[in-house]
Every structure is written in structure tokens, then in C-alpha cells.
């Protein structure tokens, strides 16, 4: 069974007197350990699809199964709990809490899992080490560079060991050198930790690091490159 199964998903919303349909009858499967990039023009529905899979939006029709669970049928509260346990979200704008240190920002998702402070500390330190920011644990977001902020955002996304990590334009706010570092970090999450990633990007180069590249054109998926799992490749 695939990790993610999107079945005939349509999303509509009303803007003024117009009904906009960014996604119509979309089907998609993502296997465990895959790194899928999703490209498309603005308004093609790629972020909408990512948000639907992340459980922060609901489809107008259709079903989304993640790890066998139909998340479209979850209540608002259950969906929030499901996100806490299963989804790591990397934002374009980092969205760190400015009054919390890097350590505290990364710890936030763990506060929902009922872990002891010792367990939380252990996990946060592993995440900090994974993103190479052990020496910045006590720094506030304003004391970090854009790249470091994004690394904190990535650490926050992976710290709860989620089923899937979704990234919405993770390099969209960074310069090219920092973007390379972040992309390399994401690739390592997939190859070294075996994490499943779904990344939305405008940048064809960024999309190139994924094992599978998809393009959304008028609601239809176009697979651009053959499937290559870095995780599988590393294992081989």
C-alpha cells in the first residue's frame, strides 16, 4: 500500500462571485521513502494539493489516505492531532516564533506528544545536530541568518519523526548558495533518514534533487523524470 493516496480530489473555493477550482479530480500516490517534487505555474494548485495532504485544508470532494487512514473524514481536532504525529511542515517563510529560541521552536511539536522533558531534549538535540545548528540552540530567530532560520524550520519539521515531511517552496526566500545547502539537507533527510518528502517549488533546479518530479498543468499531473529513490539508491 502506498503511503499517500490521493483519490479524485477536487478543491473549490469561492472568491467574490466566482468559483475557483485549483484542483480537479486529482489522483496521486507517494510511496514510503520517496522524495517527490511538485512544480507548476502559479495557481496550478500545487500548494493546494500539498496543504490537503498535510491536513491543513479539506478537499471539496475525493479522499486522501495517508498510511491507510482517510484523513478527509477526520474531525478538526483529530486532524490536528494527526498532523502533530504524522506531518512535518517546512514553510517558505520559516514561520519561527520570534520570542522562542531555536531550541524552543524545535521543541514546540514535541510539547503535543506528551514526552518527558528529557526525551524532548534528546530529540531536539538530534534534530539540531541533523541540521548542523547545535551551536545556535540558544539563539533567537532574529540572531540567525535566513538559511539558519530555515534549518531550524526543517529541524522543527523532522523532530517528531513524522510519517511525511511536506515543504512549501523551502528555498523560495533564500539566496542560491543557501538554497543549495537547504536542498542538500532535504536530500539527506530522504537518503540518510529514509524520510518521505513532498516538496512544492517553482525552481526546476530545486525540483531536480527529488527522486520523482511532477508538474501540475491545469489540474493534470505530468511526470517529468523517472522514479529514482535516493534512499533506495543509497541502500544499494
Amino acid at each position, binding site marked *: 500500500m502506498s503511503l499517500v493516496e490521493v483519490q479524485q480530489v477536487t478543491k473549490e473555493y469561492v472568491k467574490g462571485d466566482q468559483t475557483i477550482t485549483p484542483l480537479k479530480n486529482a489522483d496521486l500516490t507517494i510511496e514510503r521513502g520517496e522524495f517527490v517534487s511538485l512544480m507548476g505555474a502559479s495557481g496550478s494548485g500545487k500548494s493546494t494539493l500539498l*496543504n490537503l495532504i*498535510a491536513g*491543513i*485544508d479539506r478537499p471539496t470532494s475525493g479522499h486522501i489516505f495517508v498510511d491507510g487512514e482517510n484523513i478527509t473524514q477526520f474531525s*478538526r*481536532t483529530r486532524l*490536528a*492531532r494527526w*498532523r*502533530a*504525529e504524522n*506531518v512535518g*511542515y517546512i*514553510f517558505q517563510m520559516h*514561520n519561527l*516564533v*520570534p*520570542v*522562542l529560541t531555536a531550541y*524552543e521552536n524545535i521543541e*514546540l*511539536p514535541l*510539547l*503535543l506528544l506528551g514526552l518527558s522533558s528529557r526525551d524532548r531534549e534528546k530529540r531536539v538535540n538530534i534534530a539540531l545536530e541533523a541540521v548542523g545548528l547545535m551551536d545556535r540552540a540558544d539563539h533567537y530567530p532574529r540572531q540567525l541568518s535566513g538559511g539558519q532560520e530555515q534549518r531550524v524550520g526543517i529541524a*522543527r519539521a523532522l523532530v*517528531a519523526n513524522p510519517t511525511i515531511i511536506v515543504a512549501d517552496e523551502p528555498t523560495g526566500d533564500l539566496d542560491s548558495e543557501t538554497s543549495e545547502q537547504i536542498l542538500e539537507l532535504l536530500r539527506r533527510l530522504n537518503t540518510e533518514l529514509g524520510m518521505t518528502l513532498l516538496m512544492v517549488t517553482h525552481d526546476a533546479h530545486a525540483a531536480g534533487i527529488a527522486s520523482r518530479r511532477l508538474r501540475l498543468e491545469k489540474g493534470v499531473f505530468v511526470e517529468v523524470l523517472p522514479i529514482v529513490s535516493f534512499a533506495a539508491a543509497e541502500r544499494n
Partner: protein
Amino acid sequence: MLRFIPYILKTLWRHRTRTLLTISGTAVAMFVFTFVGAVQEGLDLLLNDQRQDRSLIVFQANRFCPSTSKLPEDYALGIRKLPGIKDAVPIKVFMNNCRASLDVVVFNGLPADKLRSVRSITLQDGDWSPFERQRDAALAGRGVAQRRKLSVGQKFSIGALTVTVVGIFSSSVPAEESMIYTHLEFLQRTRGLNSVGTATQIEVLLDESTDAHAACKLIDDLYRSGPIATNTRTKGAFQAKTVGDLIELVGFTRYLGLACVAMVLGLVATTTVMGVQDRIREHAMLQTIGFTGWHIFAFIVSESLLVSLIGGSIGTGTALVILQTSSLALGTEGILIAFLPSASLAVTGLVASAFVGLVAGVVPAWQAARAEIVPALRFA
């Protein structure tokens, strides 16, 4: 929720100027609320003390100010002989100010041997014997002693009257603690009062079974055709009549207190709404990573509750400390309303602050908790 307390506190500290201003405004408003409540409590206690219905005040008919009421002192002897009367004590009242004032000093002159039997007072400092022996001796209530910085052995003057303080007392009746007791004869002979043989009023103590209203009628009937006609009422009714004007004024201040609470509501609600608007994206991010709407609701309500409670505690606490240390009493025509810094007032202040904090936070918290995540994440 405990594990989120650091986040809540740091969030409040994020806009520290705004938070501190809101706390200050809340503190000022709750200070006024508590102060007004203290006056109200003092008045309620004065008017609703059941003990006041077991004693009567005989005043000169058609006189309202102590300085104009002059009854023959020996009226007390005649009253004592009436059935159902336990005792009758002539009292001379002298004060520095007949009008409503926050610093009225009221002297009650009565026979030294009667003071202990008609007043429920306990000496905190000094001794009874010099009071009974010494002609110009005075016992000062601890309220007036604190306000006027009086101590045992000190001489104290108001106008032509000079007394020696030989004791400081406390009383179960808070207003009593703003009184000074001295000898009737000494007060009668004070230069300028010209009142030898007269008293301002006669205080009558009733037997347990005596009907107070019947006793009033009996006394007034006794002196209806005497040299000076009397007007007798229960002590409670006498005090209520005397402070009648103040009752309306103090009643009005109740609205002032409520207006203060409404102001706190507006202030805390505005701050909370601003805090929520500043953090639309942050709340969306928190929900994205798994926080529920109820978490967001609880965070915002906690913030508003904390701001209101901190401000309320500072305001209420400051008011209570000032009330306790200043021993203020509002006096008019010889009757004193003590400002009472009570535990119930402290609880009322804190409960009102907490309630206002909760109410102020509920609507913005509900809106933030129900906000759609995706549009909120795009909010600039």
C-alpha cells in the same frame, strides 16, 4: 497546559510596552474599584450593624448638627428611670469639621466610668487608670492615631481643645477606631463651647426585651413639654439620617466602580485583539504543526487572564495597603464611615479582574481558534 506557560509568558513579554501599559491601566482601574468598594463596605457596615438597633440616640428636636444640639445632661437621669432602659449616657460631641471630610477628628466626651460599659473597645497601648484619673485624658482610636501620628503621652490639640493621649484602642466597630474619647466634663468646660451641664446627645442602652420604637416614643413624650424637646431614634436610624447625603454619593460611586471594571474589560480586550491580529500567521503555524483550535483558544484566554489578573492584583493590593496604612474615614456631622480594607474586598477585586480577563479574551480567542489555517498562513 503547564508546559506551554513559558510560551504564554514570552508572548506577553513580546510587546512589553503594550503589556505594561495595559497592566498599568488595569491596576489603576482596579485601585479605584477597590477604593470605592471599601467606602461602600464601610457604609454598609455602619447602616446594617444590628447592634445599632439595641441602643437609641436622643438628640435635640429639630437639630441636625452636633454643634447645635444641646440637651440638659440630667435628661440621662430621667431616661434611666424609664422601664426597659439599661442605661443612659450623656455624650458631648466635638469635632474639627462639621462638613463631610476625609480627616474629621471627632471627640466624644462621656463619663469616664461609663466608657467601658457602652463601647466595645480594647486598649492596644496605654492604660485605663490614667484615663479614669486624669481630667484631660483621652483614648484615641487606632485609625485616628495612625492618621494623626498620635502616641501615648502625647498632647493633641484641635482648636481650643487640648487633650493628653493616654491610650490607643481598637474596636469591633471599624468607625469607632476613628474616634477620640475623653471626659464629658472636660469637654463641657472647654473654652468656647459654653456647655457646662449639657450634652450633644444621650445614648440609651435598651434591655433585651425592650421594643426600641416604643422606647423612643416614651422618651420623646417625657420631654415633649420639657425645657428642650427631644427627637429619639435607634442609633442605626440616627446614623442613616445623619449620613443621608453621603449614602446617595457613595451609592453613585458604585457606578464609578462598575465603570472601572468596564474600562478594564475594554482595555484588556483591545490588547488581546491587537495581540491576536499580530499573530495570525503564528497561530496558523501552530495549528499546522499540530496545535488544536482549543490550544490557541486557551493561549489567548490565558494571556488576557494573566494581564488582567496581574493588573488587578497590583491595583487591588495597592489600594488595600493604602487603606490599611492610612486608616481613612469619611466623616460628616460626627458620624464616621471607615474605609474597610477587608479580605472580601481583596477576593472581589481578584475575582472581578479574573472574570474581566476571561470575558475580554473569549471572543478574540474564539475567532483565532476557528480561523482557517491556509488563508491565515498567507496573511501578511
